[in-house]
Structures are given as structure tokens and as C-alpha cells.
């Protein structure tokens, strides 16, 4: 079946512009995660959705970052007034059930964001 998809795959933008990143999880997956991966580093947790609700937004780096999920399906991560330090790969993952011990996350290919 189809895996997690993300779009766009690459995005180049100018400092100060807003960008919107999209994630389509595996159909029927309840949990959805966003991560940021800077070059040569591990993944940094951003936000988790259980259904359409995000119980914890504390991983978002600043108030320029926001995310939403609708229909217990597609999610968008929006970065307003982008800064050069926002340049990274943004990864989305989903899992079949609510987050729990041992729950495997299935990852999308990521969106590579470059802010000039």
C-alpha cells in the first residue's frame, strides 16, 4: 500500500516568506508526527497529533511554526517569516494507533527546505 507522502520534496524560499509543508499519512493511521532534521544531526521532535488534536506543541521551535491536521488525515506544517536557521529537512511520520510503548513510526521522504 501507499506509504507516507510529503510535498513538496524540495522548497527554496527567501527569508521572510511563509512556507507550507504537507504530509499525507498512511490511510487509517491515527498518530502523526513532525520532525526536523538538520544536516548531520538526529531528528528533533516538533509536534504530535492524536487524531486531529495536538496534545503537546512544546516542541515547536517558535511561534512562527504552526501545524494542523484535518479529517484525521492530511497535516500541514506552516513556517511564517522564514529564517535561514529554518533550513532543514522536515520529516513526517505516522503510526497505526495512538502513541505508545513499542509503536513503530512510518516515515515519509521529507521536505528539504532551504531559506536564502
Amino acid at each position: 500500500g501507499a506509504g507516507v507522502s510529503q510535498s513538496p520534496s524540495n522548497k527554496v524560499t527567501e527569508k521572510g516568506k511563509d512556507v507550507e509543508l504537507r504530509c499525507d499519512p498512511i490511510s487509517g493511521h491515527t498518530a502523526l508526527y513532525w520532525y526536523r532534521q538538520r544536516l548531520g544531526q538526529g531528528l528533533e521532535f516538533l509536534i504530535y497529533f492524536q487524531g486531529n488534536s495536538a496534545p503537546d506543541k512544546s516542541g515547536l521551535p517558535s511561534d512562527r511554526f504552526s501545524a494542523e491536521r484535518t479529517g484525521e488525515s492530511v497535516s500541514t506544517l506552516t513556517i511564517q517569516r522564514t529564517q535561514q536557521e529554518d533550513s532543514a529537512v522536515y520529516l513526517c511520520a505516522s503510526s497505526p494507533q495512538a502513541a505508545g510503548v513499542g509503536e513503530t513510526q512510518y516515515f515519509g521522504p521529507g521536505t528539504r527546505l532551504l531559506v536564502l
Partner: protein
Amino acid sequence: ELKVEQNPLFLSMQEGKNYTIYCNYSTTSDRLYWYRQDPGKSLESLFVLLSNGAVKQEGRLMASLDTKARLSTLHITAAVHDLSATYFCAVGRVDSNYQLIWGAGTKLIIKP
């Protein structure tokens, strides 16, 4: 604060050799994951380890967990070129059922 360290961060080895990647973490956890990432591709789940002494094997890869030492190892036996990738460990926070803390990754290059 939970911190995760992997070493080495880079490893170049010849086919046929054995080697081990280490993942140390700083505080108690109830779950540890190993993932593989090929360049430009998604992360792929390899193993989930949930208890002290857990050992899992898939092909030439074997992962183990020692919760008392807060250490997991990923052992590669008789490496082949296809295993070239970046390997990440991720450790779960006990105060959160969804947050994982990730190591920086080990880039493994296996020369034919």
C-alpha cells in the same frame, strides 16, 4: 533531560568484516528503536527493543539492549555493500508516550 549519544558517527569498513554501533542514553527509558536511512530516502524501522536483555536479529544485523547500562548495540556481521546507510537510534521518554530523543546517526560505508 534525556540525551542520546551514538558512536561512531562515521564508519568505513570492508565487506566481510564485523562491527558494532553503540547507542548510549542518559536516563531511564522504556523503549529504544533502531532506524536505517538511505540517502534521499525515508527512515526505515529496523528494531524495537522494550526490555532489558532484549535481542533481535534480522539478517546480518543484530540489536541488543542493556537498560541497566543504558546501552544498545547494533552489531553487523560479515558486512555487505547493501548495508551502507545511516543508522539512527531513538530512545523514548518515560514521561511521554510519543516523544523520542534521537541520536545523531552513524553513517556506515561498506566498501566492496
